[in-house]
Each structure stands twice: as C-alpha cells, then as structure tokens.
C-alpha cells in the first residue's frame, strides 16, 4: 500500500480520523495533509461537529436517577433486604456508644432547619461573592479540594488510619460524623484504599451538625490518588442528586471535584485527572455506596 495523498485522505481514513481510530502517527500524518486539502478538511470539520453535537444530545439524561425497576432487574433479590443505614446506626449506638465528642449531632438531626434556610442562604451567597467564590458551589466542596491538595502529595503520612485497619477506620469516622459511612471497595478497578482521616468542618457547618468531616484516600498502581470527602450537613442551595463538577488550582495543580448529595451525606470526589476519568470514578463510587446501603445488616465488628 502506498501512502500518497489519495490514500491518506480517502473517505475511510477521514472517518477513522474523525472517530479517533487512527494510531497517533497516522493521525498526525492525516492532520498534516488536511492543511493542504481544504475540501477534505471541511468535510472532517463537518463530521466532527456532527459527532460532537450527537455526544451533547441529552447529556442531562445521564444525571437522571435510574428507575428502581431497572436496578431491580439486575438484582431482584435486593428488593426486600432491610435498609442498611438505620439498622447499622442502631447497632453502632449499642456497641460503640456516643457519649464522647459530638453527641449533639446524633440526637439533633438538626442540620436542616427550613425556617432559617432561606435567610442563611442569602447571606452565605453574599459572603461567598464578596470573597470571590462561586456561591453555587457549596463550601464543603472547596474544603474538599483544599484537603485533597494538602494530603494527596503526602508520602509519609497521607492518612491518619491506614486501610490495614479498615474496620476501625470506618467505625471511627462513622462515629465522629454521626452517620454510617462507607469506603467503597474499588480493588477490581485498580484502586486500593490507602486509608482515611478526620478533618474539621469549615465555617459553613450547619448548626447542630457534627464539626467533623472525613476524607478517604485511594491509590492505584502508578501512584495516582484520588480522595473522597464526606460531609454531613453541608449547606447547599439545593441537594444535587446529579454530579456537578468544579475545578480549582491549588499549588499549581488543577484539582477537579465532582460532588453530589446522597441522602444526608454530601460527597466530593477530587483528583488531578480529566473530567472523563473523574466521572467514571464518581459513577462507580456512587453506585458502590448505594449498593452498600442496600446490603443486609451485619453486626459491626466489636
């Protein structure tokens, strides 16, 4: 086969070029030839625009909740399993006790006072704007990105409690946050739990809510890390079930965070990789946490 112009710019090649199916060297060669062939270049541009507009078509559907009948189709026996969080919390209450620390958060469940909400939101938004922040991004997400930037590069002490004591870690953080937490197992995707740490809540903590936040850190074989930050009682204008993305630059590194609220817990997943990878991870983490919530009750290790 010759690699003259005609061959490199035949229709099949141009389709493959648009669809990213050529190896990098070949793609570079095609790109080079396109500079000298405006008609072919225009064709490529049109196909690429068509491709991108198809990709954008109803992207918002991706954020819609999946109807239960579809998840049930995957796991029919899960339908009548007892709900995990409440039973787990009760067990935790009995075995661990809540005398210490932030008992207020337990009894209260008082992080969401509807009456105060509107006024507080307005003043918080004004304050955020004054501080040059985007008021549509909850403060806890900013805290999560900062905590990620601080601990992600840490070699000697990335976490307080390592994954070798995973049960203890989860129980401890659950107790301090006043909610049963889950650190999803992602080993089959190449991510292992490094461990976790307790962090102080920012100044946006709702009245009566625990002043503690949790951060779990994961690492893959190549040493990449992401963190999962969990907050109770974070204030946000509305609880997004959908994933939202935010980006900030800390210490010269771009940290992207996807955040969502699931029940009474608010999550932010932060990493230094592109949006696509982050979304896949967030989908996975969200689903695994959901699965853990549906697991039958097992007594916590004492």
């Amino acid at each position: 086969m010759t690699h003259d112009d005609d061959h490199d710019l035949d229709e099949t090649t141009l389709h493959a070029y648009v669809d990213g199916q050529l190896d990098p060297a070949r793609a570079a060669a095609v790109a080079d030839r396109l500079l000298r062939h405006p008609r072919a270049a225009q064709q490529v541009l049109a196909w690429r625009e068509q491709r991108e507009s198809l990709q954008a078509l109803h992207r918002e559907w991706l954020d819609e909740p999946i109807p239960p009948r579809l998840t049930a189709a995957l796991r029919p026996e899960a339908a009548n399993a007892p709900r995990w969080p409440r039973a787990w919390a009760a067990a935790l209450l009995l075995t661990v006790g809540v005398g210490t620390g932030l008992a207020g958060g337990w009894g209260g469940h008082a992080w969401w006072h509807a009456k105060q909400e509107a006024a507080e939101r307005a003043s918080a938004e004004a304050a955020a704007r004054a501080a040059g922040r985007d008021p549509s991004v909850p403060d806890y997400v900013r805290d999560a990105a900062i905590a990620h930037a601080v601990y992600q590069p840490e070699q000697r002490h990335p976490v307080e409690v390592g994954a070798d004591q995973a049960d203890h870690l989860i129980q401890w953080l659950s107790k301090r946050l006043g909610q049963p937490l889950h650190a999803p197992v992602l080993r089959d995707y190449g991510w292992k739990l490094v461990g976790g740490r307790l962090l102080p809540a920012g100044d946006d903590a709702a009245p009566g809510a625990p002043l503690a936040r949790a951060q779990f850190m994961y690492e893959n074989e190549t040493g990449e890390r992401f963190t999962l930050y969990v907050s109770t009682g974070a204030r946000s204008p509305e609880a997004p079930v959908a994933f939202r993305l935010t980006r900030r630059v800390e210490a010269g590194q771009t940290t992207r965070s996807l955040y969502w609220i699931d029940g009474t817990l608010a999550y932010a997943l932060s990493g230094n990789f592109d949006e696509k990878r982050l979304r896949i991870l967030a989908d996975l983490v969200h689903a695994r946490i959901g699965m853990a919530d549906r697991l039958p009750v097992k007594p916590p290790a004492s």
Partner: protein
Amino acid sequence: MTVVLEEALPLLPRLRRHARLLCGDTARADDLLQDTLERAARKGALFHAEPGPTRQDALRNWLLTLMHRLYLNQRRDAREALHDSLDEEDTAQPLVHEPQQQVALRLDLERALAALPAAAREILLLVCVEELSYQDAARVLDVPVGTVMSRLSRARERLRQSMSGGEAGRAPLRVVK
C-alpha cells in the same frame, strides 16, 4: 456473578440514554434496557473479562451487544426492520434551563436522528456517542467491519441532509454545547 451486576450499575445512566436515543421513546427504551439487564443477570456467567482498566469497557460492550440483539429482534418481530416506526407524537423530553436557540437546534438533531433508519441510528450512537472502536461496534452489531464503515458513511450523510432540509452541501450543523 454478583460482581457483574454490581459493576453494571455505574453504566446504567449511559446505557439508558443510549436506549432512549435508539428507541426515541422513554417507555420503550426502559423496557429494552430492562430486558437487557434481565438477560445479563441470567447470563452473567458468560461474561469473561480480566480485572483491570478495560474491564468496564468490556462489560459495557457486552451489555450493548445484548441490547442491540434484542433491539434487532424487536424490529424483526414488528416487521419493521426497514421502516423503523417513527411516532410523530413522540413527545420530546422537557428541556429545562436552556437558552431557546439551543433547544430548537437540539430538537432538530433529535428528530433527524429519530427519523434515520434504525441501522443508521445504531451505528451513529455506537461510534459517535459511545465512542466504540469500529471493531467493537462490528462485534456489538454482529456485522463485518466493512459494513460498519459503509453504514457509518451513509448515516453521516443522511443525518447531514435531513438537518439541512435535504440540500446538498449546505453549512454543517453547529455544535451544541
């Protein structure tokens, strides 16, 4: 087997959109996806893939294969393999929080996509939206790669024509973002 089921959960939003764009109707799409997932749950043992970064792609491709096989069977059953039914009354999903112009444009694309023959819609969704390789798309549809190429080429041209009112060589569509 449980592993497979649990792993499929993060894929559901994409698969659901895929089904909805394929069927052009939410109720039919959800039925198609439910059939797909039930079949997957029954046949979970048939799915083999190494753990690792490519595993989720392999799972997605397997589920897409099941879905497209079912979709093809449906069309055969309905004897509409050639004339894919297009219900004019198919209501577009409510589009919220979007500037007017984008809505109008998107509906055009959505209608144009829905009006394509099913085979053209399948190939565009698999290659452009789900970004499958030509080989993977060929496997999902159970056709040779050459067929994927010729269908793709025709589908692109048809979509362009129907969005430019049938005129040849008009300005390409604008990107919706």
